[in-house]
């Protein structure tokens, strides 16, 4: 079965998500372990995020344009995975990951900083000149984020809701290619969001598997479908670290092909909180 065929087969299960849900009968105590595991996952990713950001910002400060361009996407991935938690800190989320559209004066806005400001410099202006202050600020913000997340008691509803939130993120900004409009590295972020969502789903899956096996099967199939389409655009089939080709190379058909499983995942995962009684 080709990945495309798999996707199409998988995306037709839409309606079941909307059947009247059963009453949640989950012992709240059972949520403790997956939430703890999730925080450990987030901390691991933050750890990676910090060390990747160090290398990325060092490249900018050293004026190594090519290296900085190469490190842009692999660094962001860690942030995209943990976005449900990272964006709880709105000030840092804005200074790390806001896009120019979020500012009145766009690219020229003095408050526009972070990855997308650097993206504009590295990929549109093709320079690292004058970006040392942005790089330093980014490093400070990322370290600050790690410290804050370490001290954060994770809110269960946000953790569980994060699975759907990440798919909404994909549906809203990744499929359209708006996220990384200069670097066209959207597929990296896409994969990061999907990874993060899938992780949450995997952690809570045992709790809902008995209650609603069809739900679990459907979600798994749609994740598989998304992964399969993503796999088409890997630079090296067997090496996930090599990442993805430019989003410009994604066919119009495949862009729309993402919409089906992504929408079903968003719709299905939106019921996860209800299924877990949160």
């Amino acid at each position, binding site marked *: 079965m080709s990945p495309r065929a798999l996707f*199409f*087969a998988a*995306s*037709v*299960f*839409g*309606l079941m*998500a*909307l059947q*009247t*849900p059963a*009453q*949640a009968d989950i012992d709240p105590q059972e949520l403790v372990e997956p939430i703890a595991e999730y925080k450990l996952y987030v901390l691991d990713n933050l750890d990676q995020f910090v060390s990747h950001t160090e290398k990325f910002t060092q490249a900018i400060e050293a004026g190594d344009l090519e290296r900085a361009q190469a490190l842009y996407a692999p660094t962001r991935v860690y942030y995209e995975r943990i976005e449900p938690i990272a*964006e*709880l*800190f*709105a*000030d840092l*989320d*804005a200074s790390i990951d*806001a896009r120019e559209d*979020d*500012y*009145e*004066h766009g690219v020229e*806005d003095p*408050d526009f900083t972070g990855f997308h400001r650097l993206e504009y410099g590295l990929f549109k202006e093709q320079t690292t000149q004058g970006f040392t202050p942005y790089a330093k600020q980014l490093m400070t913000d990322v370290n600050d984020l790690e410290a804050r997340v370490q001290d954060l008691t994770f809110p269960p509803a946000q953790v569980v809701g994060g699975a759907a939130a990440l798919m909404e*993120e994909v549906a*809203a900004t990744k499929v359209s290619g708006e996220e990384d409009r200069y670097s066209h590295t959207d597929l990296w972020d896409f994969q990061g969001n999907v990874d993060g969502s899938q992780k949450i789903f995997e952690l809570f899956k045992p709790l809902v598997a008995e209650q609603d096996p069809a739900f679990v099967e459907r979600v798994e199939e*749609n994740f598989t479908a998304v992964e399969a389409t993503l796999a088409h655009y890997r630079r090296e089939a067997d090496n996930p670290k090599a990442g993805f080709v430019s989003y410009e190379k994604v066919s119009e058909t495949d862009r*729309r*092909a993402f*919409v*089906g*499983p992504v*929408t*079903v995942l*968003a*719709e*299905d995962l*939106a*019921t996860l*909180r*209800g299924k877990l*009684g*949160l």
Partner: protein
Amino acid sequence: MSDRPDNTSRCPFTLDRRRFLQGLGAAGAAAGLGGSAWAGSRDDAAGAHAVTGAPVSTTTQQSHPFHGRHQQGILTPRPATGMVVVCDVLARDRAGLERLLRILTERIAFLTQGGTYPKRDPSYPPADSGILGPTIAPDALTVTVSLGASVFDERFGLANAKPKHLQRMTGFPNDALEPARCHGDLSLQICANTHDTTIHALRDIIKYTPGLLMVRWKQEGTVPVMPPSPDLPAPSARNYLGFRDGTANPNTDDDALMNALVWTGADPDEPDWTHGGSYQVVRIIRNFVERWDRAQLAEQEAIFGRRKESGAPLSGGSEYDKPDYANDVDGQITPLDAHIRLANPRTPGFEKHRILRRPFNYSNGVEANGQLDMGLLFIVYQADLEAGFITVQNRLNGEPLEEYIKPVGGGYFFTLPGAIDEHDVLGRSLLEATAPHA
């Protein structure tokens, strides 16, 4: 979504996907203060809601029967609002298409008759958008489902069952078609007395078809309402050029005429499954209204071939009198290139080219040049696409009206026959006709 302005120096556009954790406590406190500042637990003083009380309608309980040989929304009297939503079908196997058609049938049957949504555990997303409250009124809603030519490709095994004339719309000389507003696998024509009812229906359908449908484009429209009048037939509604539109429509009470002009079935070359369906043409026709409003009245009337105020033909009489071209062969009264004369020359044998118009006016916003983006959401139905719209439009190519209009989008679709009872599903005849042999 918490959309409060935040306290940084950034612009007031809030980032709706970003929440401000530290702000949660402050917001809670602010909400508390808000509560105590407005003393009194109820806001029901007599005049308190003169401004925001819901407007009243006496027609919310109007409903059209969903089941029948034909779908509603074609011969059904046109209500005040309508929209066309064209989708791509994402489910690309037959089972997915069948599921889609079944869900659409179920949703439309419910929405058009009204009813109450089930309540869910509040930790789940609600069963409905809730924009019309827990119980919805039919409000004369109709949802008409039609298929585009692209559905008859290899995905669903329907290739051998394509209606004879169904094709991808090609541009006419005056068209400036935008790809983002053209074509598509499936069109939904949603009409109701009030705009919110159509929006509600659309959101319901989207919510219940995840992974099956993706909206490709959508155009909303309205027609101006008029006070009740003793005159019969009622005068036609006006378009945004100020002229009455649809005057020359065939008589929808005449079953034989409808079977000839609107419902597919008479042509032996059409597949059997199409019987009771119809060809639907949708065109988004932008009107250059500022320029039009600066054109002489005489020129406007000459362009249409009708009086602007009454809708009567230039040859005299009232709106529903037939124009007299026989005594005006060289176009002294009604120019030969007047819109209505080109569209229907009233010559013997032209009867078969008549089409059923059911348009709405649209208004979208402002163009980059500061001019209003508005015009006609042109919708017509006919038994034979070639004989109907395509023939008529080819006759209209080059008409003087083109200076004031620009078709920018649309598509051709085939409206499915109706679902005859609660066991039937829209598209059943098509699926049965194409069922793989066991």
